[in-house]
């Protein structure tokens, strides 16, 4: 998807190109051939698609202008045709823009950008215009009134199907009651068989755009469908971003390399990609060098007991520089080399170069390139001499590298490896590395892996021992970590652009480097609160939950997934739950079964969350609505008609997490509701049985009926509030609060008294027009009780209310 899009984006007018390549096919034919891809495969569907494209456009236009959208959709029957009218209160449109927006197929202002927007391809509205023109022969009628203008402008627009060029047939001033906005009128062959999809589309659009006001009139409706605004908050403005290095593909990269003004790869990376600065560019370049040039293996300088002498060898290699200067040069090279734990050919070269300059400055003798090269070669031989090398003199069969390799391999492999085997591998590998053909021991990781595998296979064959994948990988890792990135300058942009392999290496390097995720200000999630508000607005449910995930990245495009659940209330309980899918705030109404969202919902074990799920998998059933919104700079659809999300694992994971987050809230709501229901049932039954039992007990024992409230409160784990009086003239009122539950209860007890209370224990007293509000906020621990007292005249009335505890858990006897 990314590659097609970005590749297309590099060039203007793909349709013209297509048309040019297929002279004999007109744009009408092109449309006819591709209309299923564009969502116009039937009259029923064509109408929905046209509405959808026009409404999407209208929403985008109003939001871009910072206006709260007010959108009017009207469908009427006109003879054999349907007339579609869509009005918005956007900024209007100028004559110059007009053909571009409505006329030319595949003109798209969003085609090049990485920014979240509803339309992504610039096919939509112009396809609707073309469809109407092809089926009814009527032009598109457009009325526009830019903000601040007193008159509106009326246009009729037709697309020349031979040239794909729009023609403006009429252009006159007119009056329009909207202060600003755009009105499009299209006539088309259509039918209303997809009425429910149309309604779904409009309703879902309202859910996901709580800031929009939408009205729909169509022949089947007696009353217009009106969706009011739930918030005045416009979606956050999004900003455009450059591509992310993790999100490009080879073809795109090569095109970008060809097009860039930068000379160096570093400049190219920093200039063309988001989240790449100097440091990141350097990391990418280091990775690129490792791939392009390979790394150099660093070797130990010779130890005293070894048959090697750097100083002597360097001295031998220098001629005509005088004994003193030669001696100084050789001994300083030897000394510096000796100070290193390990060093590579490149490092040695650096050392020799530096010392040559210094000695030249001290002694006045010039150490030219030839001398330096000889010195480097001589010193390098003293570090890495390997006698078996083909070009080694017969009398000088030294091996300075096998022991070194042996030590590395021994460290890297498990102690259970037989030392003989390790030694044999070291010998075999030394032979292969020495004969690899580069005396600098430069290898790419894949070269290194290959040599190690080869050496290991050889030893396995020879000795009938095992040296498995893990051991090989450990050895390779150990050696790779001893290798150093070479200082060679990377090829420039042009060189890489021309060399497909180098470009592939650069791409790999980019992918391998850790780079910050792309910035997410290019995305405008609906946000948790507004998802919930949207659901609340359109569904009369008992419960709502919403979750917005943090931004993630797929293929260099950031995305955010949001989910919402509404449950119970007026939502129909029979059949499967209603699933609402959205991409960049656009409802997806077709191809539900092919959508990643649906797959994810089906894969979740809904029984865990308290929803029925026949068979334990598949779409859950019950009175619930599940909505999922994916916002991205590039939403991956399964096809151009943008009906279903493609199954991208990263996106599926986030969809699942978002849904589960909301579902967890649903679960705790349902659990609580169930336990409250149980409690209510228990309360009902016991509330009936126990008084009867008390009556019977009183009857049998011949006593008064006992007071059973205490027992009841205890049984129900309840909080009970009881009133007691004491005294005659002035009565002492006691409210006894007993907590029989197993948790602490924070209560808010308000007593309204008709006479002024005195001496209340704690609490506050407020006089309100002859009524006194006494309020306490006691915390009563599990199994404890609290006593609240005050004194009042004996003719006072009382009314107590208790908050802070569920009604089911409360027994008030006061």
């Amino acid at each position: 998807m990314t590659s097609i899009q970005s590749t297309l984006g590099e060039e203007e007018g793909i349709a013209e190109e297509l048309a040019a390549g297929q002279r004999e096919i007109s744009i009408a034919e092109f449309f006819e051939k591709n209309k299923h891809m564009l969502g116009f495969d039937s009259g029923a569907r064509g109408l929905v698609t046209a509405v959808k494209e026009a409404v999407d456009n209208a929403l985008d236009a109003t939001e871009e202008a910072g206006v709260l959208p007010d959108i009017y959709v009207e469908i009427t029957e006109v003879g054999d045709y349907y007339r579609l009218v869509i009005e918005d209160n956007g900024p209007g449109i100028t004559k110059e823009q007009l053909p571009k927006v409505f006329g030319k197929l595949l003109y798209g202002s969003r085609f090049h950008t990485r920014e979240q927007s509803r339309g992504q391809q610039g096919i939509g509205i112009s396809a609707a215009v073309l469809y109407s023109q092809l089926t009814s022969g009527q032009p598109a009628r457009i009325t526009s009134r830019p903000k601040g203008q007193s008159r509106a402008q009326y246009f009729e627009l037709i697309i020349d199907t031979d040239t794909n060029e729009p023609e403006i047939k009429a252009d006159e001033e007119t009056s329009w009651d909207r202060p600003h906005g755009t009105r499009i009128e299209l006539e088309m062959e259509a039918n209303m068989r997809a009425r429910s999809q149309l309604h779904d589309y409009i309703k879902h659009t309202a859910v996901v755009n709580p800031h929009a006001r939408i009205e729909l009139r169509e022949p089947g409706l007696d009353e217009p469908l009106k969706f009011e605004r739930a918030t005045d908050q416009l979606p956050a403005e999004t900003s455009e971003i450059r591509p992310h290095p993790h999100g490009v593909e080879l073809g795109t990269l090569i095109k970008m390399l060809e097009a860039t003004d930068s000379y160096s790869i570093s400049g190219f990376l920093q200039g063309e990609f988001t989240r790449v600065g100097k440091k990141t560019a350097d990391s990418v370049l280091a990775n690129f060098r490792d791939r392009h040039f390979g790394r150099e293996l660093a070797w130990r300088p010779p130890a005293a007991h070894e048959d090697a002498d750097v100083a002597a060898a360097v001295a031998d290699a220098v001629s005509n520089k005088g004994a003193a200067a030669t001696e100084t040069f050789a001994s300083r090279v030897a000394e510096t080399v000796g100070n290193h734990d390990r060093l590579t050919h490149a490092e040695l070269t650096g050392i020799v170069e530096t010392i040559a300059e210094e000695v030249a400055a001290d002694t006045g003798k010039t150490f030219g390139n030839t001398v330096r090269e000889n010195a480097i070669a001589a010193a390098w031989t003293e570090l890495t001499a390997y006698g078996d090398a083909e070009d080694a003199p017969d009398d000088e069969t030294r091996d300075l590298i096998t022991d070194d390799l042996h030590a590395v391999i021994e460290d890297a492999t498990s102690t259970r490896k037989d030392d003989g085997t390790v030694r044999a591998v070291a010998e075999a590998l030394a032979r292969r590395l020495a004969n690899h053909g580069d005396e600098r021991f430069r290898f790419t990781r894949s070269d290194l892996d290959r040599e190690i595998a080869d050496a290991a296979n050889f030893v396995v064959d020879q000795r009938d021992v095992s040296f498995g994948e893990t051991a090989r990988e450990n050895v390779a890792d150990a050696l790779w970590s001893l290798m150093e990135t070479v200082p060679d300058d990377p090829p420039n942009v042009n060189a890489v652009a021309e060399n497909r392999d180098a470009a592939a290496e650069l791409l790999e390097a980019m992918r391998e480097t850790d780079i910050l995720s792309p910035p997410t200000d290019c995305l405008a999630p609906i946000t948790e609160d507004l998802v919930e508000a949207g659901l609340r607005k359109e569904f009369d449910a008992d419960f709502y939950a919403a979750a917005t995930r943090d931004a993630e990245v797929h293929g260099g495009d950031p995305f955010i997934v949001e989910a919402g659940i509404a449950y119970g209330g007026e939502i129909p309980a029979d059949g499967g739950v209603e699933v609402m899918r959205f991409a960049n705030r656009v409802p997806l109404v077709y191809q539900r079964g092919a959508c990643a969202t649906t797959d994810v919902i089906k894969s979740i074990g809904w029984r865990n969350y308290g929803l029925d799920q026949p068979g334990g998998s598949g779409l859950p059933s019950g009175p619930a609505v599940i909505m999922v919104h994916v916002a991205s700079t590039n939403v991956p659809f399964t096809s151009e008609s943008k009906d279903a999300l493609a199954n991208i694992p990263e996106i599926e994971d986030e969809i699942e997490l978002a849904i589960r987050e909301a579902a967890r809230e649903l679960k705790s709501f349902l659990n609580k509701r169930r336990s409250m229901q149980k409690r209510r049932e228990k309360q009902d039954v016991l509330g009936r049985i126990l008084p009867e039992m008390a009556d019977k007990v009183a009857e049998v024992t011949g006593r008064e009926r006992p007071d059973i409230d205490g027992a009841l409160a205890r049984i129900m784990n309840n909080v009970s509030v009881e009133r007691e009086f004491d005294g005659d003239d002035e009565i002492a009122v006691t409210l006894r609060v007993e907590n029989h539950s197993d948790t602490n209860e924070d209560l808010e007890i308000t007593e309204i008294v008709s006479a002024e209370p005195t001496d209340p224990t704690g609490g506050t007293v407020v006089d309100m027009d002859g009524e006194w509000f006494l309020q306490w906020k006691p915390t009563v621990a599990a199994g404890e009780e609290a006593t609240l007292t005050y004194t009042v005249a004996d003719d006072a009335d009382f009314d107590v209310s208790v908050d802070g505890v569920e009604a089911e858990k409360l027994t008030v006897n006061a």
Partner: protein
Amino acid sequence: MATNDQDARAQLIDLAAEFYDQFAGGQIPEMTLPTRTKSNIEYDPESGVWTYGDRTSTRSANSVRGARKLLKAVYTIEFLADQLEEGRSSTLRELYYLSESWDNDEAQFTSQDESNDLVEDLEIVSGVTREDFHMRPEESGATLMGPLRLREQTRRGEREIHCQEDVGEGGYQIPNNPDMIEFLDHDIDFVLCVETGGMRDRLVENGFDDDYNCLVVHLKGQPARATRRITRRLNDELDLPVVVFTDGDPWSYRIFGSVAYGSIKSAHLSEYLATPDARFIGIRPADIVEYDLPSDPLSDSDVNALESELEDPRFQTDYWEEQIELQLDIGKKSEQQALASRGLDFVTDTYLPERLDEMGVR
């Protein structure tokens, strides 16, 4: 109202008063009972019977189930108290049907097991027997036959009955409350409790009771309380040895167990119902082998029952362990009437005399 009845009534009212006090004290009404399972019966060395151990379970109004149980208990208490006051009696089954007439649907019994259990619960907590509540079981029809003269208090006055001379072939029918019987005179050497009607009739036909001065008690399967009670009294008051003659299968051993040790369900009354001196005469698994009796193979449920008996504390004696293990070993069971394979007189002429001699009863 008899003093006995007054006491029983007072005990019941006390129970209700206990619930009353719990309510009044703000407590959740509850009733504590010994746990009535195999694992909670213990041997009481003093009385030689098995009674309930220390484990208890509580019926509490805390749950809907518990509250319903207690409501039923209170209604039953009222019914029993009224019955005692009026000097009437009823059967357990009548109680079950009578609950339908109660004004409260919640208090009605859903099955007779439920009402039977509840009456037993009330026996336990009040310490009054069912008989003293004037609750009868359905007619069990168990009978006595043998040289015994007794006096029975009937509703129509006292009757003196000789259990051979004054009765027909069927014998003397044991009344529901055997404590209404007074033993007057007897010529009994031992009491023989017989499980099946067929064997009882065989013994009577062969004149075994006459020939051996034996009182034949027909158990009729799992013996009713009255049958066990009269057996206990014969043993206790007349000091007669008691032997039990059943089929040779695990279910019959349980019949012996409830006669001799007390049943698990009525362990609270073991002291009153069980006859610890009773001994098992047969059919023993050893007899199946010894007399080469016709037999059936043990079914799976027989094997399970035998294994469960091995874990039953009442059967954990050397004698029973040996017999049960032998039976599991041979995998066979035989009925009492299998003895007929050796002739109709074999049981009275050979088997029982031999076994009685072996046991030193005769």
